[in-house]
């Protein structure tokens, strides 16, 4: 089992909120990424120590994930997003249809967030002329939001990105 496939050990996350929608509907408007991330952030942050700042951080992170699925998703199938909580961490599970050719890309991209050279890669990407790839977005979450990122692939053709965000500790 490589780093990308490794599952988080603990299973105590409590469900907070989830949504599901047709991928075609989601892809019909770029603003859905912003609107969904802002709405979900507000809903799940209300009982955090600093709801306003927690919501701001969470919205940033979730928006990036939704943008990843927007850019990589196909119109068939459904997108699902669930948020869970365990202590100071929120877990986001984002499932979306992923073409077979892209699965390996996600495996590698997630694995790179665990490697020792993640920060060097991130700096290289910032220096490059190319726009941010989905790989860079995942690195951004790992570096700027202290996120732990994993993949779940039990139900193709969808792919599930699991992101643990210890935002309560960052925001306080």
């Amino acid at each position, binding site marked *: 089992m490589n780093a990308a496939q490794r599952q988080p050990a603990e299973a105590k996350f409590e469900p907070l909120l989830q949504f599901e929608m047709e991928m075609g509907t989601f892809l019909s408007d770029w603003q859905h990424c912003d609107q969904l991330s802002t709405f979900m952030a507000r809903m799940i942050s209300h009982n955090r120590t600093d709801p306003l*700042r927690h919501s701001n951080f969470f919205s940033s992170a979730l928006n990036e994930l939704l943008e990843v699925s927007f850019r990589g998703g196909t119109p068939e199938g459904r997108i699902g997003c669930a948020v869970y909580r365990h202590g100071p961490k929120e877990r986001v599970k984002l499932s979306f249809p992923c073409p077979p050719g892209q699965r390996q890309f996600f495996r590698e991209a997630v694995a790179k967030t665990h490697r020792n050279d993640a920060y060097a890669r991130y700096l290289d990407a*910032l220096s490059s002329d190319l726009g941010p790839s989905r790989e*860079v977005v995942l690195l951004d979450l790992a570096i700027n939001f202290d996120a732990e990122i994993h993949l779940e692939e039990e139900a193709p053709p969808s792919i599930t990105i699991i992101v643990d965000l210890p935002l309560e500790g960052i925001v306080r």
Partner: protein
Amino acid sequence: MSTAMLAAPFQAEFDANSQEFSLAGVLRPRSVDEIAHSITEFRSAIEEARGVLYINVKRLAQMNNTAFHAFSRVVLDACRTRSDIRFVVVTSSVVGWTERMFRHLGKIEPQITVEVYDSKFYPGQSFVEDTSFIPILRTQTKMTWRHERTILPRHGMRPGIVMADICCGIGDFAVLVRKEFQPARIVALDHSRASLAYARDVAANFGISDIEYSYGDASEMLLEDNQFDLVTCRHSLQIFNQPDLLLKELYRICKPGGRVYITNEKNSHCLGEPRAQSIQWTYNEVAKLFAHFEMDVELGPKSRRFLAEAGFDDILVESFMVTNQDGDPQDFADVITAWENVYAGEMAVKRGDPPEFIERFRQGFRDHIFAALHPKGYAGWPIWAASGRKPL
């Protein structure tokens, strides 16, 4: 998506006088094309700049990686072609992710530095955020609350409202309001982590979980427009060096038809008998001392003008006198003791006042305490309470 759709939530501006390029609002484009105009403006700003260019992101509530990378590219490219220029990215500790993201640019190019603007903030901050002031703040609120609980309903306070207490300090006013008036929602915001920690502890001890204490800068709030039925901001315009800026933010977050309630002092009108002259002299000097640190503790009666100039209508102004007759005179004396310690013991010393001035300055506070505790004495501390309605 059109650029017009993006234009609403974010602003990009260059101020040539201060060589500052500002990004504010929510910046989440699908592609760089959508922000091409702002990128071009940014490039022009760099071409125009000499010496140092400030990149102000302190009001940037959200920015996605597409936008971050696009703006970063421009700065990084400029570092390679313009060795004569320095870039200072001005972030806010409130929007913590900006500090985290932008600091990486300095690792790539040493010409780029990142500053957290609110680590300096305003001139009087260190005095009012001193934790030794916490017990006295509680006593002050206890004394003013006796008056404000009857005043507040005239200024828009009622059960079920959504309210914000900006510059909430140690949060005691929010707790009192919650108990007395049962608002549906209270957001309490302050820029002192120590005060907020205290507020949260008190709330936890009393089993209060429905006050949203938030770390924020009252002049650059993350709170969105038009949210609150009532926005309160007590004793804070007078210690902020740009009260009009603060009021603009209070106006922004208030709902149309809602009200903004402010309290401020006119310190030179503090009074006492006996020893009135000594007391009067000291409080005149208090006003001058605060002015030295860019604070206006004479602001109380100016509230009407400030509210009118900020765009409010239906402005109500009233004043009340906190006195040694309100409850225990020792509470009044304790407040004045704390003032003496901070104003004469710290602020006058910092201003560089000579010992003979400080001694006379202290004497006025002592005489005020004498008046407060004297069986036939009277001591007063006047406060102006004012509110304005945000037009519909």
